[in-house]
Structure formats: structure tokens, C-alpha cells
């Protein structure tokens, strides 16, 4: 475990009377969390500007949501015809981002890619932030968030296993817990200067691979089991979700790695980026193939069940609100495909980042506005009522994204501090090299 605090330790949070006793593990963990948090809110002026901006946006969103709860969801542009909108669109995309965030886990742990090992945590932290955001989007979409407790099994009524929404609640919260455990444990061990024990985290990591697939499959099952919505009622929805998740997650991480490099001045993750680009090259093509397949089935067959697809791609009876959205998404994705296929994309950061951004935004549109809204237009009785998100919805959306970025920034800072030994515990035994930094990952 840990050695007693040495008498040469002048700054110790352990009171003198207990200095000679062993501090319990949970108190050490709490101390780690406290130190991690308080150190992570320190930074240069750019950091403060970034966080202040995000806070401002978050507060605007929080206020918009509070007004929405008080005055009713009539402040949104949703209606009895289009009853799910921007919130659920973002929720869907973010569950995919969370699933794709652990994409790096597979090569690192299953294929023993050492270069990926230390960077896997960037993806797991992304998963944490993305899951928190997706849960917040669901809460903001509820008409009665004050009745949230009705969903707690035992206290309320939990319609498990019939309702897919209950499966989603279980898998999303479980995924959050798994990733919090993995990241918390690994960072804590590094903070203490101890080697992590394999059995405390490797099973969780392997579980998170399967769990990541399940969160997005379950989310797809939410939609594709509904017979009344033919646009969703396709077996291809779950595979399509997974393929697009495994584009957006890696794309975000590629950009995140480069930002961390520029902020910490450390060069790392070259191998990781190469691996991620290889992954994206495959998954973005798979995603495109699935889109083509859907388009063929819809437009070759024709008939009433394809009205939604007609509305999405070409407009229906003069209503064409979504047409610019989907064509923008397709264009972005196609350009991203071309850019990713360049053989020199790894050596040209500008092209790489543009490709990542285009893929990310294109998929956000395609999976969000391009997948949720068309299922409601035309309605189940074939009425056409359109949907354009209201200001309230944009504000809440921006607020939740700002909070997600804030959480991710803080988590990354903690990780960087721990890995650079800036945040470390002096009272524990040092059983690993003190020069354990991210910069060494390429040599390990």
C-alpha cells in the first residue's frame, strides 16, 4: 500500500497527530481528486479566456433551459407532428461520439499497440464528457425534468426490459461509471507514483469495448424498433450509427491530440494519429456505403414509405427545409473522404484537420438533423409539418456543448498534470520512473 508519511514532508494534508498513521485509501483518493481539480483550474491567460467564454455560453444555455422548464416546451419549435428535435439529434450524435472515443482501446489493448496505450485515456475522457452531454440533452428534452426520479428502479417504475429507453438509461450510466473508474484509477495510481494493478482496470477496459458497441446499438434500437416510423424502421440503423460513431470519435481525438501538443509543447501521439487515420479511412467508407444503400432502397422502391427520404433529399410538395442540411452533410463527408484518402494526409496537418472537421460536422448533421427529423416528416398520418430549431433550442444546445468542452478541458488538464508529474503525491512509494511523461510514450 503506501508508506507512512515521512517526517521530512513539511506540507502534508495529514494532521500531525495522524502523520505516523496510515492514511486510508479513500482519503488519498479524495485528496487526489481535490488536488486534481484545484490544480486544473490554473492556467495561462488563454486558458482563462477559453473557460470564461465557455462559462458564459453555458450560463446562457442554462437560463434558456430554466425558462423552457417554467414556460413550457412551446418555446421550442417542436410540435405534435415533429415531437423530437435538436436535443435528441445532439443526444444521438454524442452517444456515438462517446462510443467512438474508446475506439483507440481496441488497438491498444486487443492488439497490444504500445504507442496507443498512454493516449487511450484521451478517448476515455472524451467518452466521459460526451456521455455527460448526452445525458444532459435527454434531461433538457424532458417535459417534466422534476419527475426524473420516476425512472429510478425501486423508487419509481422502470419499464425494463420492454422499453428500450430503460436499456439506454442503464447502458449510458454504466458506460459513464466504467470510464470514470478506468480513468480515475489510472490517474490516481500515476498520481501516487504506483504501477496500476492490471486486474483493477484491464477487465473494465475490455468491458468498455463491448459496452461502447452496446450503447450505440441500444440507442439505435430506440428508433429502429418503431413500426410507425418507416424511415427509422430499418435493420441498418444500428450498423450505420456505429460506423459514423467510429468516424466522429477518432476525428475528434486526432484534433484533440494536436491541440494538447500545441498547449503542452510536447510531441507525442504520432503513431496514434496514424492508427486513427487508418481507422477513419475504413469507417468513413463503410458509413458512405450504408448511406448509398439506404438511398437506393428508398428511391428504387418508391411508394409511400419513402416519403420521408424524399422530403430529406429533395423536398416534398414544396417543403424543403432539410434539403440544404443533408446536401451540406454529404458534401462535407465526400470531401473528407477524398482528403483522408490522400497518402500524405498524415504529414500535412492542415489537410488532416480540415478533413477531421468536415467529417465531424458532416456526421453531426447527417446523424442529427438528417436522421431524427425526417422520421417525423411526413407525420404518421402523412401530414407535412416542418421543423426549424428555435432560439431557445440553439441556446440550450450551445450551453451543453460549452459545458462538455469545459469538462473535457478540465479532465485533459488533470491528465496532463498527472502525466507531467506536476500533480503527484509525495507520500507514496515511487515504483515507477519519475520521468514518466507523455513524451516518452513513443519510446516505450
Amino acid at each position: 500500500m503506501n508508506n507512512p508519511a515521512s517526517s521530512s514532508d513539511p506540507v502534508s494534508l495529514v494532521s500531525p497527530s495522524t502523520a505516523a498513521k496510515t492514511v486510508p485509501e479513500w482519503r488519498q483518493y479524495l485528496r487526489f481528486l481535490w488536488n486534481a481539480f484545484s490544480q486544473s483550474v490554473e492556467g495561462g491567460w488563454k486558458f482563462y479566456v477559453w473557460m470564461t467564454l465557455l462559462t458564459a455560453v453555458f450560463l446562457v444555455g442554462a437560463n434558456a433551459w430554466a425558462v423552457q422548464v417554467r414556460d413550457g416546451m412551446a418555446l421550442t419549435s417542436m410540435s405534435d407532428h415533429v415531437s423530437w428535435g435538436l436535443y435528441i439529434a445532439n443526444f444521438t450524435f454524442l452517444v456515438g461520439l462517446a462510443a467512438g472515443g474508446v475506439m483507440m482501446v481496441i488497438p491498444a489493448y486487443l492488439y497490444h499497440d504500445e504507442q496507443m496505450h498512454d493516449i487511450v485515456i484521451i478517448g476515455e475522457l472524451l467518452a466521459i464528457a460526451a456521455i455527460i452531454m448526452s445525458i444532459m440533452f435527454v434531461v433538457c428534452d424532458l417535459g417534466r425534468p422534476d419527475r426524473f426520479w420516476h425512472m429510478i428502479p425501486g423508487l419509481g417504475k422502470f419499464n425494463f426490459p420492454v422499453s428500450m429507453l430503460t436499456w439506454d438509461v442503464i447502458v449510458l450510466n454504466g458506460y459513464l461509471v466504467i470510464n470514470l473508474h478506468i480513468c480515475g484509477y489510472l490517474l490516481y495510481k500515476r498520481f501516487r507514483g504506483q504501477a496500476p494493478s492490471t486486474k483493477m482496470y484491464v477487465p473494465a477496459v475490455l468491458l468498455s469495448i463491448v459496452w461502447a458497441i452496446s450503447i450505440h446499438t441500444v440507442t439505435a434500437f430506440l428508433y429502429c424498433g418503431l413500426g410507425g416510423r418507416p424511415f427509422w424502421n430499418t435493420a441498418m440503423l444500428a450498423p450505420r450509427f456505429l460506423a459514423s460513431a467510429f468516424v466522429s470519435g477518432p476525428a475528434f481525438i486526432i484534433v484533440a491530440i494536436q491541440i494538447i501538443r500545441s498547449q503542452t509543447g510536447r510531441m507525442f501521439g504520432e503513431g496514434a494519429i496514424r492508427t486513427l487515420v487508418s481507422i477513419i479511412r475504413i469507417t468513413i467508407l463503410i458509413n458512405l456505403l450504408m448511406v448509398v444503400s439506404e438511398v437506393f432502397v428508398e428511391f428504387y422502391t418508391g411508394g409511400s414509405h419513402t416519403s420521408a427520404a424524399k422530403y430529406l433529399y429533395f423536398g416534398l410538395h414544396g417543403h424543403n427545409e432539410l434539403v440544404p442540411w443533408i446536401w451540406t452533410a454529404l458534401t462535407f463527408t465526400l470531401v473528407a473522404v477524398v482528403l483522408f484518402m490522400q497518402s500524405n494526409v498524415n504529414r500535412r496537418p492542415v489537410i488532416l484537420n480540415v478533413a477531421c472537421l468536415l467529417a465531424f460536422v458532416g456526421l453531426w448533421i447527417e446523424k442529427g438533423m438528417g436522421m431524427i427529423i425526417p422520421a417525423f416528416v411526413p407525420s404518421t398520418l402523412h401530414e407535412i409539418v416542418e421543423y426549424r430549431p428555435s432560439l431557445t433550442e440553439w441556446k440550450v444546445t450551445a450551453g451543453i456543448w460549452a459545458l462538455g468542452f469545459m469538462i473535457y478541458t478540465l479532465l485533459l488538464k488533470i491528465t496532463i498534470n498527472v502525466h507531467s508529474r506536476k500533480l503527484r503525491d509525495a507520500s507514496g512509494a515511487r515504483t515507477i520512473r519519475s520521468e514518466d511523461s507523455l513524451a516518452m510514450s513513443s519510446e516505450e
Partner: protein
Amino acid sequence: MNHSETNKPITPCSGNCSCDGGSREKDPWTGNDGSNRRAVLKGLGATLGVAAYAKALAPLTELTQQTSMAEFLQKHYKELTTDEITVVLDRLTRETKEQYGADVTISDPKPIEGVKFGYGLNLSICNGCRKCAEACHLENNHDRPSNQSYIRVFEMTKGSMDFEKGNVHYEHPVPQPDKYYMPVQCQQCEHPPCVDVCPVEATWKEKDGIVVVDYNWCIGCRYCEAACPYHARRFNWQKPEIAAEEINPDQGYLSNRIRPQGVMEKCTFCLHRTRNGRLPACLEACPTGARVFGDLNDPDSEIRWVLENKRVFVLKEELGLKPQFFYFFDE
């Protein structure tokens, strides 16, 4: 932290705290190294942040006007004892008086044993006058400005069953010679997808076939609205607006009491009437007599006669949901 004037730390730090060991430069005037200023600024920032957050969320404090602790803690309808239901009904009666200024009676009629409701609609006679929709609007205390109703009447083109050619917004005299009229409301399916998908079991199918919603349990996720293939569900996007003198005071807990903001509702076959043997409001208002209602378990009922003697069909039969709402033509 003790530092001498010589700017050298007296004791080595372990780096266990948030400073970096006292190696910062000291201000020659104040003698401190700026960490106090930093702490003050951070504290100020944090305080401002918390205050701004509280201000941003201030509208939530006004929620107490619309809901109460008793409602927040209320259990699911199926878990309430008879006495608890009485308490709830009293509270709801008081709340209706406070919020809408009307005296109402809210009852909780139970299903009649052995009865299974079915509804028939004669498309040869329906003339599209929408009096059924109006009766529903008045009977069920719907929101006034939106002309809300559980019934939506479609003007369909003769020769086609395609709803895409249907129109709900007609305002010309009816019936038009080349059209027929199809009112659609909740079909009270035998296998309702809305019941399957509700995460909190706020909606369920009762023994007499009516699919009901506990308005005080619904969390407003609108999954049931996404799942329903018949556009039967309505959501309260805002608090319903209805004048006191227009409120129908004869109300049922699971049916036509005034619903709160943020919950789902739907046609209940007027169970506050039908469970007492009365006809639903839409049927009584129909001037042509196109609507038929009764007990499917009674072999002598009108609805059974229709099912046995008319060519009856249901909407979207291929979905396998077994709706209990039957359409028929006379010829």
C-alpha cells in the same frame, strides 16, 4: 507557507499542493508572490460564477406556482390505495380552483367488469363537419387557442386510402362530392407500442381496453408520441389555456381533468362517461350517426353487429397492433 525575505523557501516542498514550491518571484513592494492575489481573483471568479449560475436558473424557482411537493412525491396511480386516491382528487380539485377559477368534480371510475370497448366509424355517412372534434374539444377541457382535439378529420379523395392525399385544414362546406371524410383518434390498440416504449409505465392498457395516461406520473419524454403510428398522442407544450366558464366540471382522473404542462395525453373514449354507461361525447355530437360505440363482449351490441355485418377494416393493419377502432363503408 513560510518564506524568508531572501526569497528562498525555508523548507523543501513536496509539490503536494497547488503552488509550485514557492519558486515564484516576489513582489518587491508587498513582499508576497502574487499567490494571494491569484487566490482572491479565483475566489472572486468562483463567486461571480456561482451567482451568475443562480441567476441563470432563477426561472426554475417560479415552478412552485405550477406544482407542489405533494404532486412531486405522488406515487404511480396503480400503487395508490382508495384513500390515497381520494386525497389526490381533493388536491387536484383545489388546484383546479386555484389555477383556473372553476369548481370541478374529479372522479375515478373503474372499468366495468367484463366490458371491452370498441368503436366503429361509418365512412359512407361521415360528412366531415368536425362536430366530433368540437365535442371532444369541449368535453375534454382542451387548450382553447389551438382548437386542440384528440380527433383529426381527414378529407380524403374518393378512390384512395392514401393519407398523403388527405387534408385536415379544409374550411369549405362539406361534404364535397369527390371526397370522403375520415376522422382519426386513438385506436386503443390491443398491442399498443406507446405502452411498450414508456420508460416509467405512465401509460398502460386497462381491462376495458382503454389505454390511459397517469398525467401525474408522465415525465414528458415523448417516446410514446414517436412510437404511435396513428398520431393519437398530444403533448402539453405549454399550460392549457381555458376560461373558467368553459371548463367541463364533470372530470375523471385518467381522462378529462385539466392536464398540467409538460405531460402527454390522448383520447380515453371519454371513460368518465363510458365507464358510467354513457356514450362518448364525439358520438353524441355526430349529426349523421356515423359513430358506433359499445361493448365488444356483448353479442347484442351495435358494435358487434357492425363487425359481423359490415365490411370492416382497420388502419395500418399490417403493423399488427390490433386497433379497436373499426372503419366501414355502407356500400
